[in-house]
């Protein structure tokens, strides 16, 4: 009896939380489609004109170009620098391995606001702050470790004997990498790439601290639009929010084909 009440309570809580999520998301969607909406369950009339308005007024074409540039560059760099590191970490021990692991862990553990302010200060000092390059360099700080830790188990799964076999048969080091390791690591690279991509697009703090007038990513532009609520109709802000949401959701759906949802957060107790 007590067990059943308990399970019902847990179920009701999960239901409530889910409903609250659905409410939060769909309120934004409905609002973006409303002609006017004021204290009624649904707006009286619907329109799609806020999307055109939002696209124009918030210069979304430029913002999306910046966002795509930042996300793709960060992903490419994170994989390029991260894969060799993950390969070595998976394959062998070396003297300072624990110190290196700690160095990779810290940017993921320390909140971005804490290290973002000194990082922004240094980058502005060298006049990199406020540029697209600054946003890319700053975002790479947490994304590089993320890529490494996602890649690590994938590389561990590649049997080392395959590499030895290739070497024995006369393959050079580059050939082993190109013909054996890389194809086998492809699922890992895809997973890591997608996770870095979606995280970069959704990453707020570092992009916010480092972006200037021409280097705002979509989520930063959205922040300024919400922050300056009242400057523009709320429906147009919500239209922008929906555009952002659709982009993130598409990438999320793609990512969830490869990873379990629990892998989207830290793996506790693992490596």
């Amino acid at each position: 009896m007590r067990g059943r009440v308990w399970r019902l309570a847990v179920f009701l809580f999960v239901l409530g939380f889910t409903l609250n999520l659905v409410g939060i998301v769909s309120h934004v969607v409905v609002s973006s489609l409303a002609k006017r909406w004021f204290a009624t369950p649904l707006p009286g009339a619907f329109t799609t004109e806020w999307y055109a308005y939002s696209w124009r007024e918030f210069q979304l074409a430029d913002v999306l170009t910046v966002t795509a540039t930042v996300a793709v560059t960060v992903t490419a760099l994170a994989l390029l620098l991260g894969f060799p590191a993950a390969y070595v970490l998976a394959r062998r021990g070396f003297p300072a391995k624990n110190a290196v692991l700690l160095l990779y862990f810290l940017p993921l553990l320390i909140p971005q606001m804490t290290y973002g302010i000194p990082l922004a200060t240094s980058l502005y000092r060298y006049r990199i702050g406020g540029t697209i390059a600054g946003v890319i360099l700053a975002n790479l700080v947490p994304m590089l470790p993320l890529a490494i830790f996602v890649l690590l188990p994938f590389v561990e799964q590649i049997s080392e004997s395959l590499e030895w076999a290739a070497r024995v048969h006369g393959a050079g080091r580059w050939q082993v990498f190109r013909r054996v390791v890389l194809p086998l690591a492809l699922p890992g690279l895809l997973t890591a790439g997608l996770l870095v991509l979606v995280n970069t697009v959704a990453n707020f703090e570092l992009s916010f601290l480092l972006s200037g007038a021409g280097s705002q990513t979509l989520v930063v532009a959205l922040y300024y639009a919400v922050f300056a609520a009242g400057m523009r109709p709320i429906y147009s802000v919500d239209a922008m929010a929906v555009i952002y949401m659709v982009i993130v959701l598409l990438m999320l759906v793609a990512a969830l084909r490869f990873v379990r949802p629990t892998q989207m957060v830290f793996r506790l107790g693992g490596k």
Partner: protein
Amino acid sequence: MKRGGPLLLVLPSVVYLLVMFVYPFAYGVFLSLHPAKGAAGASLANYLAFFGDPWQLRTIAVTASIAVPNTIVTVVLALTVAYAMRRGIWAERTITALLVLPIALGTVLVAEGINGFYGPKGWLNQGLQAAGFGDPPRLTHNYTGVMIALFVQHFPFCFLMLLGYISGIDPALEASARVLGARPWVVFRRVMWPLIAPGAAIAFALVFVMNFGVFPSAVLVGQPAGATRTIAIAAYQQAFEHYDMSMASAIAVVMGLCQLLGLAIVVGLRGRLAGTGVATVGAGKR
């Protein structure tokens, strides 16, 4: 591979993090000790100014008053639900995928959604009014708003983390306890909790640290000029409104130290929470 081989491959990423992560941190600490105005040489003037100014000092209390209760509620509820779901549930993949949503969408979108849904004209208040509750309380642009935003953001994070951890515990341990006649509560208290405690401590520490650095939610759903002026807002204002990078770095250092203090308390409590020295075999997902 030759001796230097492995190091050569790790080197680029290590150098990158040294230059972009360790150096800025060191530079920030250095800068915080060298105030913009005043005599040359190191001084604690920034820190003294921060702790001497009630308006700035208050941000620590404000941030703690948000972070501490929120972390406790988040971890306790996430732990409860994750424990109840430890052997899988109906439509688990759908539910967990749904829970990932706020993590993937990020703080800014969640904040905007909360402003709409929980706002004075939102569906929740409309529903409450229709149900005859009269004048519902204000839920956004105040302390409550920030609490809701942080909970919506961090509950799924904490839940998924703990679910992965708890479902990695060997079910045979629990089964043996049951066979030997332990009731559900005793199974939890004497068998499962000692195994879960290390994971719960890490989850608590992570959520606390994230909560303590709250920025976008505190601005967008809170009252950034008053009740929810958190320490991150204070640091941001010094850096980008007063252009006093030295003072901003000092506040960032204070924020980091507070987070460190929180971690130290969790680590200190962990030993006690875990209770007796029960073996912690088989915990965690490998």
